[in-house]
């Protein structure tokens, strides 16, 4: 059975109806929203809930069918009997000696950190009987503030990954640890004679004080050794921009709490990871509707999470962003607010021609920034050239946000290496090509794959006589190095790192290594000639570094970081002549022929290192809603010009290299540019990652790592059916996420008041006021960025299975919580709005009326409960659910889990079997835990003490959970808020989850 292709035309199921469904002028919400182009065109009418084929087995022929029939009959016979007999006898295995801190059956939480891209993010990891089961943010940590992004949360599953490398190998054959140490020692002895000449190290950028000191020691022993650090998604341009402006490389760090007007030039500062978690928290503190509400302008090539949150967004080609930045400087000096910027304005003169629409945008944004003065922030993204970063520094200084007593933008010395861009790799490649290397140690993430196509690092590594590669996986780089060394996962090794503000964070293992492995510190120490376990190295380092070590070590570990170690941040004065010079030198390419190619990191797999993570692969991309794939993203208009549609395969050729990729039409994408997300198309030993997407690194040249012209696109006439979830779980064109402009809010109060509260009903409503709690949730759409951290949190907390690409295509994904995103306006520059939606726990729940076996019922406190053991799988409930939040286990998804993956399961939540319906429970396991804890202590659950998994992960605190029977609770306050509305209120379901209208703060000049 082949499901219909997901092209625009083929999805027509029912002719467009624009009358009574709430779509069109008759909409009670007063706006038109659409989820996809097909829906906008009216091609996506009322169709079946599931796509065709969702209920069928995949590729079963007649023979297999009868074989299965026989087997299932036999099983039914055996199963019928076995369900009436005792379960098999099991064992109880107590501890030999109970660890003093542990109570079997209760969770423990450990503070640790996750290093990524040179920043260590503080985490709290929940451990059950010695196995880590959930990753959350450390509320005290300056970067996390209690939130956890999708990568931080999902790296837990990486620990249990059955495809992780377990065996130390030399040229493909297994060897012992001693063999490696011997080889390292021998190499070191020979190298020492030559003072390290011929020793090359290609390292992962790190802010770890321990690793930095080891690298220094290494350089003392081998002064002629060459050390390089590289990261495929390098942020070197930031530091380079600061070098231009201030004369030394510095790391900017923003404090959004005082922001009034923010203009982001291709900077995705709301991306859910690392220090940006704290940015999101602080930024949304300024977004409370009211007089002081901040305004966000975004200029970017493809829609990002930050772009979705913007009040005004301008899609612009990557290389045009620089042009617009120059135009902005002209505008600011033209307004006369920043006369100091005159030299910059002169430098920008010859470049500052901008087309009409962009011109209006920059004019309005510039005037707004000028008015906001010290509350104005100009941000530049890591893909932009250093000159733009220097320009931003100068503008912020001139406007006042980067000077004075409490500047919003400060600079501190970078905690990690800054030279991580292509120049470092080019230098290394040149030396390797010249045959100068004799020993190579690689700890950087998969450089043979993620290095630049023109450097051919994989081939060059092969020519080095002895090379060592440390990695979690036997990936594309492993075959190029003579020694493959399996690495330890951050959750099973000791270490340290610095937060983005310089605070030292400690990494402590949650579990003994699941397989023998090494840490980078161990390898370096062996090379130095003093091999020692990481724990010993770490303690020795800090004993030498801090006087209070003995006293404070335990406290540091408990807190996860060392208080008061933040680096000194300053707001130096930029040297404007140098900025102007750099602006002049940074030649903007004149209009060139062909399409622009833009490379981008991926929200899910980052640079490819998380590609083998099933949670991340299955997570729909926050923007494209694409799962298990990447695709060449281009705007609908550009696609039309090229005659392409979503799912079509094309050959992308750029500078003589080519790759086959699927095309995906991206709403809000800039014209004339194609975004290629990196990190897919893997060919290493990672089996989950295999077959997902195409490898954009194959086109990435080292002299233009982010943008370039001359991409050609050739249609291949074949298709790849992408697993895009944006049209799954349709709600029949009823607009659900609401958005208003700040000015409209007052006028809309009355209309909104009709969208909440009880509707007239024949049923006697149940009175819950006598119960101790009346659980409810409130989701503030004004704070939701659509980042999907909540989806991963829910998946981890509730043992939600991963179903795989083919099943996602059949709409069988199991995520209890999905993030819908709607668009409004024209497809080339629409306004976007994200809406997380899980079971809303209706008080008058339509699912309950139709269940023939009472498998879904109400609890005394009004939770809509799902009783798995009663469920016989009729799916009537899902059919009758207007919110489409129920998920059915079509297959036995948990049976294929490897023994290690099973360790990641939350023991407080039932693992569901095939044929059972499931859905959001409001994290009832957490409610019951807290209830029992409170009742044993003889008190009630305090407001804020109990948080659902999604609420806990949310970086911007959009989700609030609590009891409505407590009028002072935060959730009660939000339910009383004037912005509250109930989803599909007209159906009278009385949902317990309330939504708060999103408020935009548009600039009247832009309309």
């Amino acid at each position, binding site marked *: 059975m082949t499901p219909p292709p997901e092209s625009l035309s083929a999805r027509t199921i029912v002719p467009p109806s624009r009358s009574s469904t709430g779509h069109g002028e008759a909409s009670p919400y007063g706006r038109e929203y659409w989820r996809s182009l097909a829906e906008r065109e009216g091609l996506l009418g009322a169709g079946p809930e599931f796509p065709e084929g969702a209920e069928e087995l995949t590729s079963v022929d007649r023979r297999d069918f009868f074989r299965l029939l026989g087997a299932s009959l036999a099983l039914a016979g055996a199963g019928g009997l076995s369900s009436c007999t005792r379960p098999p006898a099991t064992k109880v295995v107590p501890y030999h000696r109970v660890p003093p801190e542990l109570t079997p059956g209760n969770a423990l939480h450990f503070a640790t950190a996750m290093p990524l891209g040179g920043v260590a993010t503080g985490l709290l990891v929940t451990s059950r009987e010695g196995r880590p089961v959930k990753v959350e943010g450390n509320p005290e940590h300056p970067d996390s503030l209690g939130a956890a992004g999708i990568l931080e949360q999902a790296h837990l599953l990486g620990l249990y990954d059955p495809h992780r490398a377990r065996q130390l190998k030399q040229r493909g054959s297994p060897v012992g640890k001693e063999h490696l140490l011997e080889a390292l020692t021998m190499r070191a002895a020979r190298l020492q004679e030559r003072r390290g000449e011929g020793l090359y190290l290609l390292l992962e950028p790190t802010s770890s004080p321990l690793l930095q000191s080891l690298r220094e020691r290494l350089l003392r022993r081998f002064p002629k050794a060459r050390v390089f650090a590289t990261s495929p998604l390098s942020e070197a341009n930031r530091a380079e921009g600061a070098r231009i402006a201030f004369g030394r490389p510095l790391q900017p760090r923003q404090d959004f709490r005082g922001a009034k007007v923010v203009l982001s030039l291709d900077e995705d500062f709301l991306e859910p990871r690392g220090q940006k978690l704290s940015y999101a928290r602080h930024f949304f503190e300024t977004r409370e509707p009211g007089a002081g509400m901040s305004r966000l302008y975004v200029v970017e090539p493809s829609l990002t999470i930050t772009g979705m949150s913007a009040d005004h967004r301008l899609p612009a080609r990557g290389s045009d962003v620089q042009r617009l930045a120059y135009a902005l400087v002209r505008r600011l000096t033209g307004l006369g607010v920043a006369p100091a910027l005159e030299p910059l304005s002169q430098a920008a003169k010859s470049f500052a021609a901008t087309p009409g629409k962009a011109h209006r945008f920059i004019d309005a944004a510039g005037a707004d920034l000028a008015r906001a003065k010290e509350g104005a922030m100009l941000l530049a993204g890591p893909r932009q050239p250093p000159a733009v970063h220097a320009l931003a520094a100068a503008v912020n200084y001139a406007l006042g946000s980067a000077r004075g007593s409490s500047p919003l933008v400060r600079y501190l010395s970078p905690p990690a290496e800054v030279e991580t861009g292509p120049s470092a790799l080019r230098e290394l490649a040149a030396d390797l090509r010249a045959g100068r290397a004799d020993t190579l140690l690689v700890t950087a993430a998969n450089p043979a794959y993620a290095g630049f196509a023109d450097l051919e690092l994989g081939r060059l590594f092969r020519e080095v006589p002895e090379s060592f590669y440390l990695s979690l996986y036997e990936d594309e780089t492993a075959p190029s190095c003579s020694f493959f060394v399996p690495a330890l996962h951050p959750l099973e090794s000791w270490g340290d790192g610095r937060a983005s503000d310089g605070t030292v964070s400690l990494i402590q293992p949650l579990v003994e290594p699941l397989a023998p492995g090494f840490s980078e510190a161990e390898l370096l120490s062996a090379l130095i000639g003093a091999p020692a376990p990481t724990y010993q190295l770490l303690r020795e380092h800090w004993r030498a570094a801090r006087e209070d070590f003995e006293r404070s070590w335990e406290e540091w570990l408990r807190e996860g970081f060392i208080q008061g170690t933040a680096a000194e941040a300053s707001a130096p004065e930029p040297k404007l002549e140098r900025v102007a010079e750099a602006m002049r030198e940074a030649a903007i390419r004149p209009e060139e022929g062909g399409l622009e190619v833009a490379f981008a990191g991926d929200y899910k797999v980052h640079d490819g290192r998380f590609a083998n993570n099933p949670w991340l692969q299955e997570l729909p991309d926050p923007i494209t809603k694409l799962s298990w794939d990447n695709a060449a993203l281009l705007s609908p208009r550009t696609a039309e010009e090229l005659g392409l549609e979503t799912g079509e395969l094309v050959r992308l050729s750029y500078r003589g290299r080519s790759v086959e990729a699927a095309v995906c039409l991206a709403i809000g994408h800039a014209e004339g540019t194609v975004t290629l997300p990196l990190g897919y198309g893997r060919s290493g030993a990672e089996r989950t990652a295999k077959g997902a997407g195409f490898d954009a690194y194959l086109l990435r040249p080292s002299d233009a790592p982010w943008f370039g012209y001359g991409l050609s696109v050739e249609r291949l006439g074949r298709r790849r059916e992408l697993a895009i979830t944006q049209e799954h779980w349709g709600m029949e064109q009823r607009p659900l996420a609401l958005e208003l402009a700040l000015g409209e809010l007052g006028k809309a109060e009355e209309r909104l008041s009709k969208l909440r509260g009880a509707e007239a009903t024949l049923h006697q409503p149940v009175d819950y006021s006598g119960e101790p709690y009346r659980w409810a949730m409130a989701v503030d759409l004004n704070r939701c960025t659509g980042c999907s951290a909540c989806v991963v949190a829910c998946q981890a907390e509730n043992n939600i299975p991963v179903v795989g690409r083919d099943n996602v295509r059949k709409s069988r994904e199991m995520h209890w919580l999905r993030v819908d995103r709607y668009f409004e306006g024209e497809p080339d520059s629409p306004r976007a709005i994200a809406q997380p939606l899980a079971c809303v726990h209706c008080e008058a729940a339509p699912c309950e009326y139709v269940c023939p076996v009472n498998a879904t019922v109400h609890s005394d406190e009004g939770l809509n409960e799902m009783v798995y053991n009663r469920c016989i799988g009729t799916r009537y409930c899902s059919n009758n659910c207007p919110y489409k939040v129920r998920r059915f286990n079509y297959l036995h998804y948990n049976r294929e889990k490897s023994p290690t993956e099973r360790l990641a399961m939350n023991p407080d939540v039932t693992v569901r079997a095939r044929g059972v319906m499931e859905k959001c*429970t409001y994290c009832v396991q957490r*409610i019951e835990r807290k209830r029992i804890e409170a009742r044993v202590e003889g008190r009630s659950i305090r407001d804020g003490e109990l948080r659902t998994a999604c609420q806990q992960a949310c970086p911007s605190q959009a989700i609030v959970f609590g009891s409505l029977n407590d009028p002072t609770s935060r959730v009660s306050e939000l339910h009383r808020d004037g912005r509250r509305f109930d989803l599909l209120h007209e159906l009278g379901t009385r949902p317990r989850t309330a939504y708060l209208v999103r408020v935009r703060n548009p600039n009247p000049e832009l309309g």
Partner: protein
Amino acid sequence: MGALFPRWTNSFSRAAGAVVLATPAAAIAGLMLYVRSPLNTGERNPVGQPVQFDHRHHTADEGIDCRYCHSTAETSPHAGLPSTATCMGCHAQLWNKSPKLEPVRAAYFSGQAIRWNRVHDLPDHVYFNHSIHLAKGVGCAVCHGRVDQMAQVQQAVSNQMAFCLECHRNPAPYLRPPEKVAEMDWQPNRDPEELGRELMQKLDVRARTSCTACHR
């Protein structure tokens, strides 16, 4: 020619009809009886253990409180089994040469845990919590029976949902002062219903029958 079916066939057909109807009814009733019988529930079926541990001796004779060994009953969902170190806490001094304790000593010195056979096995979708039951005055013996009289521990009750609901619907007769929960032979000194109602008031007992109270 006589009747094709003689008169007696009337009674025969009635009897046969009754049998035809009664057989499936009896079969269903039989199955229903079976699942409720100890044959299925595992009640009154002493379970052998790798160590010949005798609760009678430890509780009745020595007067050791249940919670000395099942130490997490008040703080955790699980009552917990004693670690080998707990056993050796006493048995390093007492009976330290007894051949019956050889498996314990072997486990202690080898670091290998003792693998006990499970007696009370609730289904995986049941989340029973010991701590709340103890805090609200449900005695150990209510569910576990007179363990102090068992040579080998056996399940004293059916452990089926009907058993749980009996108390969750009307907890009063099963309650006792929380300080007496571990007393095996505790008897109320007055009307248990009345005492129970008093305790429910005092301890704020709210036995819930919502599904998610136990199934998550």
